[in-house]
């Protein structure tokens, strides 16, 4: 008897919960429908999509980009919006699930009818959404350095192409100023960016007269945590002198790698690590005293000393503090964050220039556009949706920041399809 009453009670509760869920769902969809109608009637907002993983393995990197986009949107809205309209970001969570990226981009483009989408980090997520954007003629702003071999008219690649990051870094290391290194250990996480990056690096190094036996290539799985064996291999390699590591290790594997590196007694003086995927945001979590002197190649650092950047850094810190985001005022900016932020401005500026949110018109307006980004003045290429920008080599300081020790002359033009002969 009691059991039955208890069961009746439980099922009533469950039904109530279900009903509440349905009700909120209905309200929500009604609300969004209401927005739709007010949208088309008053037409005072324009929607953009934000497609960054907020959960799962990639959240570690992508959450900061979502924050940067949000901040740029707030800034633009505070100064009157774009073409007289306020920007309304639609934030979804693709949950580091590559299939879900495609699904969510369909939802953003078809159901939510966004004017542009800002998102993706990994190349697989970009590859996953690419057909959707091409099919629906959407516009994706992709803020992360990538492996090249792709240049879609529906994607704006604001991160570095291989020649805007890898080649200057290799040049620097081989130069007398950089230390004249002659032996290279190419270490990466096993996915397409490190694979392609190392292929390009290897070809380039060979063309510069580095003998084959002086180049070692190795890959670890995603989220690899145990670098003992690899570090001892590097150590043996470094005994020969004039050796350095070119690292394309991704995300959370970096901390165990650097910790092991320091613990086994290797230092930047004996064997520096040139990292292509470690920026200030990753360093925030590391024990930086062991990292001092190691290098990175990017197009932007928080320490760049120009007014645009000072304003940007201060704004980002106060934004994180005000919104009570984890980390608060201790948050830092880095290369992808800078481009995620710049992307929104590029889009807004192009839309203003085109006088429309139409994708084709915005794209046409984007080409040759210049913008005073936190990294300095950058210029959109005339033909492809890539940025021309400076390349900087940074050295890690004890406070987790980089000091810029070397800089390319002027802007480096993007070269999405890399070939040795195409290099100037």
């Amino acid at each position: 008897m009691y059991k039955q009453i208890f069961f009746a009670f439980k099922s009533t509760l469950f039904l109530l919960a279900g009903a509440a869920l349905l009700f909120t769902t209905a309200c929500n969809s009604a609300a969004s429908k209401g927005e739709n109608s007010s949208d088309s009637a008053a037409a005072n907002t324009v929607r953009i999509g934000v497609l960054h993983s907020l959960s799962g393995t990639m959240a570690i990197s992508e959450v900061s980009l979502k924050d940067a986009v949000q901040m740029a949107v707030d800034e633009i809205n505070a100064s009157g919006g774009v073409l007289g309209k306020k920007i309304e970001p639609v934030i979804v969570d693709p949950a580091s699930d590559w299939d879900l990226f495609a699904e969510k981009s369909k939802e953003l483009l078809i159901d939510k009818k966004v004017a542009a989408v800002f998102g993706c980090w990994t190349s697989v997520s970009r590859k996953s959404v690419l057909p959707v954007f091409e099919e629906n003629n959407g516009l994706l702003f992709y803020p992360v350095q990538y492996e090249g071999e792709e240049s879609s008219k529906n994607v704006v690649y604001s991160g570095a192409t291989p020649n805007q990051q890898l080649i200057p870094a290799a040049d620097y290391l081989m130069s007398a100023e950089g230390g004249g290194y002659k032996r290279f250990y190419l270490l990466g996480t096993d996915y397409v960016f490190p694979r392609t990056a190392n292929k390009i690096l290897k070809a380039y190094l060979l063309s510069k007269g580095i003998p084959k036996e002086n180049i070692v290539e190795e890959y670890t799985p995603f989220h690899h945590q145990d670098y003992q064996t690899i570090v001892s291999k590097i150590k043996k390699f470094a005994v020969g002198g004039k050796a350095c590591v070119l690292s394309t290790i991704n995300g959370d594997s970096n901390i165990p790698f650097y910790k092991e590196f320091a613990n086994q007694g290797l230092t930047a003086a004996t064997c520096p690590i040139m990292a292509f995927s470690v920026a200030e945001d990753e360093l925030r979590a590391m024990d930086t005293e062991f990292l001092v002197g190691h290098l990175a190649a990017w197009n932007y650092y928080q320490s760049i000393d120009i007014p645009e950047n000072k304003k940007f850094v201060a704004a980002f810190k106060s934004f994180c503090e005000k919104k009570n985001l984890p980390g608060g005022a201790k948050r830092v900016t880095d290369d992808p964050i800078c481009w995620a932020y710049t992307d929104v401005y590029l889009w807004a500026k192009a839309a203003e220039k085109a006088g429309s949110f139409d994708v084709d018109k915005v794209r046409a307006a984007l080409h040759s556009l210049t913008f005073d980004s936190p990294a300095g003045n950058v210029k959109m290429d005339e033909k492809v949706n890539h940025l021309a920008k400076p390349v900087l080599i940074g050295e890690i300081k004890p406070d987790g920041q980089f000091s810029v020790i070397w800089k390319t002359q002027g802007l480096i033009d993007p070269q999405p399809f890399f070939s040795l002969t195409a290099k100037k």
Partner: protein
Amino acid sequence: MLISAALLLIVALMELLLKINGIKSGKQAGARWVWPVLLAGMVLFFAIRIATDSSGTYIQNLFSGISLGSILILVSLGLAIVYGLAGVINMAHGEFLMIGAYTTYSVQLLFTNVLHVHSNNWFFIAALPLSFVTAGLAGLLLERLIIRHLYARPLESLLATWGVSLILIQTARSLFGDLTAVKLPEMLAGGWQVTPGLVLPYSRLFIIGLTVVVLLAVHYTLTATRLGMQIRAVTQNRSMSACLGINTRRVDAVTFFIGSGLAGLAGCAMTLIGNVVPDMGQTYIVDAFLTVVIGGVGKLLGAITAGLGIGIFSKVLEAFFEAVYGKVLILLLIMIFMQFRPRGIFPDKGRAAAD
């Protein structure tokens, strides 16, 4: 190395042959002498290699293996005890590891920002017991709220604890953000320079030492205390223990506290070599399960053997193949091993173990 791989292959083939022929007695005999002989062969092989090894590579690999093994032991120890007692597969075990790591992180923040302690050694000393207690309490809570209802349905406990682990991960993510790491205490920075080519990091030596201490403590608790006796009794026969007046519910709760606490301790130790991220537990959970399963459920000695075995094997393999193939190979080896020992190295014996 190649010799030992070949040896293993030969033994595996021999066992397979015996198995296929269905010679039951032969299989038993094979099982009895083959593995110890193999183990002795491996030890001998390594001893020779180490003795003749000038560059320190083999010692390095062996050390790496022991270090990885001790981490696996730390992580799987709690799992083994809980599983042995209640038969519950706790998918959220990795998340207790995460709780321990975040406790360490919070203690560090507390010491540097609130208490203004300059030396960063003290926080770690304080964090060790605290992470045990925090994770233990979280485990206790989980047991009281959810797992208590699932003792009769162990396989389904896997699903419920999976849900718990989703919730815990997201909670950590919204509380701490995604990117945090603990600063290495000064006393554990650097390493012991044995030869110019061989450095044994203090942090890893510490973890190995911690594992030994924890193992001794758990062994003492299980064999020499009243509580340990009760735990072993309930593990062997729950209803009989209850008849004899043991409060099995209390034993369950305490065991869960200890098991989760051990995971928390492992998490605290992990901050020395890795990062602190919300889903750090997921990296280790499959390996930990494998360790438990191979070792034989609920056996301390099994967990040690399996943990060290997996650790050393994967490091040795990794030295010859790339890391991924090392991992795939070790998993394949485990699958082959399970063919001969479907219930682990030290299986339960007797009537109760049959079904």
